[in-house]
C-alpha cells in the first residue's frame, strides 16, 4: 500500500494515530529503515511471521487505544522459539484486555528483535508558529525524563542535521563511551535529512516519533514508530 493509501484508510476509519505497522509501512516507503513488523491476528500467524523473520523476535500489542504498550504488559522481548511466541501471544492479549478492557485490539505485531544499540529519538511535530519542526534526542524511551533534545525547523540543511546532533548534552555517548561502540553519526544525520524531506513532502503528517532508534556503529534502525495524521 502506498503512503497515501495507508493514510486515507486511517482517516476513513476516523483515526488520526496510525498503528505501528502502518507507521513503519509508510516510513519504509519513504526510504527510512525500520524494524519491519507484521500483524498477526492469531498465535499461529505470529509463529509463521516469526519463522520468516528469524528468531529471536519481539511481540507487541497493536491497538489504537494503547499509548504506552509496555505499561499494560503489551510487549514481550527476546522470544526464541515457536512455543515462546505462542505463549507470548496469549499473555499479551490477556494482559492488555485485563488492563484496558475497552481497547480495540487489531492483533499483535511481530518483528525481529534488534540487536542493542544506543537509543535515540527522532521526531517531527508541527509548531503553531514555525510549522514542521524536527527533533533529535538521546534516551529513546527516557527522553521525556532526560529532555536532552535539539530542534530544527524543516527543511533542514546538512549543516542543521550536523549541528543538532552535536548540540545535545549526551553527544559524548554517541562518540563512544566506556568501551561501547560509537554511533554512526553520519547515518543519523542522513536519517534526520530523510525525515525532514518526508515531512516536507507529506504535509498531512502532523506528528511523527521514531522512538527508539537504535544507533549502531554501522547504521541506524527505527525500532518503533508512530505517525499521526491530520
Amino acid at each position: 500500500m502506498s503512503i497515501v493509501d495507508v493514510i486515507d484508510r486511517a482517516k476513513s476509519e476516523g483515526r488520526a494515530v496510525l498503528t505501528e505497522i502502518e507507521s513503519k509501512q509508510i516510513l519504509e516507503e519513504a526510504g527510512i529503515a525500520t524494524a519491519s513488523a507484521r500483524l498477526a491476528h492469531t498465535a499461529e500467524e505470529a509463529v509463521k511471521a516469526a519463522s520468516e523473520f528469524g528468531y529471536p523476535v519481539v511481540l507487541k500489542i497493536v491497538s489504537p487505544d494503547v499509548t504506552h504498550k509496555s505499561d499494560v504488559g503489551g510487549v514481550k522481548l527476546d522470544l526464541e522459539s515457536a512455543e515462546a511466541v505462542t505463549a507470548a501471544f496469549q499473555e499479551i492479549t490477556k494482559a492488555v484486555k485485563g488492563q484496558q478492557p475497552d481497547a480495540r485490539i487489531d492483533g499483535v505485531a511481530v518483528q525481529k528483535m534488534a540487536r542493542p544499540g544506543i537509543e535515540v529519538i527522532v521526531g517531527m511535530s508541527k509548531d503553531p508558529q514555525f510549522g514542521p519542526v524536527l527533533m533529535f534526542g538521546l534516551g529513546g524511551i527516557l527522553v521525556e525524563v532526560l529532555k536532552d533534545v535539539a530542534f530544527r525547523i524543516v527543511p533542514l540543511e546538512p549543516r542543521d542535521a550536523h549541528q543538532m546532533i552535536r548540540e545535545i548534552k549526551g553527544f559524548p555517548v554517541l562518540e563512544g563511551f566506556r568501551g561501547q561502540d560509537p554511533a554512526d553519526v553520519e547515518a543519523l544525520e542522513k536519517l534526520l535529512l530523510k525525515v525532514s524531506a518526508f515531512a516536507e513532502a507529506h504535509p498531512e503528517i502532523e506528528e511523527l516519533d521514531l522512538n527508539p532508534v537504535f544507533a549502531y556503529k554501522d547504521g541506524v534502525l527505527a525500532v518503533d514508530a508512530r505517525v499521526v495524521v491530520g
Partner: protein
Amino acid sequence: MARAAETRSDLPSRARQQRLDRAFNPRTVAVVGDKRAIAYMWLRSMSTFQGKVYSVQIDPNEIPGIEALGVPNYPSLMDIPDEIDYVVCAVPRQVSPRIVADCIEKGVGAVTLFTSGFAETGTEEGIRLQEEITDLARAGGLLLIGPNCMGIYNRRLGVRNSWEQATGEGGNVGLISQSGTHCINFSLVGERHGIRCSKAVSFGNAVVLDAADYLEYLAEDDETEIIGMYLEGAKDNRRLFRALRETTRKKPVVMWKGGVTEAGARAIYSHTAALATAPAVWDAAMRQAGVVQTESLDETIDAVKALVYCVPGNGYRVGLVAMTGGQSVVITDAFEREGLEVPLLSEGSYEKLSEFFNIIGGSYQNPLDSGGTIGMGFLPQNLQKLLDILDEDENVDGIVMEVGIGFLARRMRENPGILDALLDTLAAHRKRSRKPLIAIAHPGHLEDVTAMVRSRLLERNIPPFGSFEAGAKALRRAIDYWRFREGMA
C-alpha cells in the same frame, strides 16, 4: 492582540522595498495631529530633519503653537503643496481612518500611526478600528507602520522618534523593535557605547508591515552593517525565519526576545510534540538562522558593540590580561563560564615572558596577572611586549585586557598624560592585530572616568565592557556569529 488575516502588504516585494526606501530616506515629512498636550513631541523630533517638515492640524487652538515652532501648517495632507514621503500620524483613533485614506490619496511613501487604542486594547471598538485601517491600507497599497508605535529614526537625515536622539553622520547599526521604548533606549544608550544607528524603526501592532518586512529592507540597505531586533512575537514566524536566514548570510542579527510566546492548546500524541515547547522551538529557529540571542538591553548593546568594533575571529581560546591576583581568578571564571577556553600559552611565549615578566606579585600562565609588569597599564613598552606575545601565540584566538579604572584615575592625578600612553599602545596593537580584542573597564565607582575612558577606547576601535561577565558574553556571542558565517559548527 487581534491578528490580521495576513501581514504582508499587497505590493510586490520590489515596490515595497522602493516605497520603504522613500519612507526611511524621506525628503519631506508631514506630522498630522501634533498638539500641546504631547508637547509637540513629533514636530520637535523632526526639528533636526534635513528636508522639509509640514504640519497638518485643524484644531485652531493648536495652530499658533505649531506655527511658533516655525512649521507651516495645513488643514489636510492634500493642501500641502509638495509630495510627502513620510507621515507621522498622531490623531485620535477615531480619526485615523480618515488620515489613512488621505495618505493613500496623497500617494505618500509610508505613514507611521503613533495613534494607539486599537486591537491591543482588546476592545470591540479598538479591534474594529484596526480592521478598518488595515483594510483601507491594503486596498490602497499604503505602507502603514504600526499602529501604536514610534516609527522611524534616521540618524543621518535627522528623522527622529525621540527628540533626545543624536543626528548628524549616519551610523551602521539598524534596529527593528516591536516596542517604542526599547527602540529609543537602544538608540540613546547605544550612543554612549559607540553604537550609532543607521535606521531604526519601532513598528507596534504590525497590521501591514511586520518584522520580516523591515528585516528584508535593512538586509539590502548598504548603510546598515549590523541589525539589532527587539521582538515579542511575529504573525508569520516561518517568513521571519526565512528572512533571518537570508539576512545573517550577510550581516549579523542580534535578537532580544521579550515575553513568552503563547502556545495554543492542541491535541498531541507524540513525545516530540510534548517536548517541542514554544521557547525551545524559538531558540532552535534562532540558532538555525545564525541569530545572536540576547536577554536584555545591555546584552544587546554589548553584543552589537563587539560585532561593530572587533576584528572577526573564529576561535574560542582567549588570552587574558588582568591587573591583580584576585582579578586573574575571576576573569578566568567569567570567560570559562561562557564556554571560552583559557589555554596554556606556547613554550615560546613563556620563554619570552620569563625575560621581563614581574613574578613578584604577579604570575603568567594565562591569565596574565600583569599589574606589576605593566605598571597597571602605564609601562607601555611592557604592555606592548605582552600584547605582541599574545598576538603571536598560536594557542590564543582573542585577547582580553582589563583596564583598572581605579588605578588609572590615581595615576592620572599625578600624570594626566599617562592615559594617552596606554591608549596609544592599545590603538597601535589594534591596528596591527588580526585577533579580536576587548577591554574591560571597571570597577564602576568612578563613573565619569569610566565614561571618558570608554569613549576614548571606542575612538580607537576597542570595545570596552563594564564587567568580565558582560565582556565574556559579548565576545562569545560575536565569535559564534563569525563561526556561523564561516560554516563552522
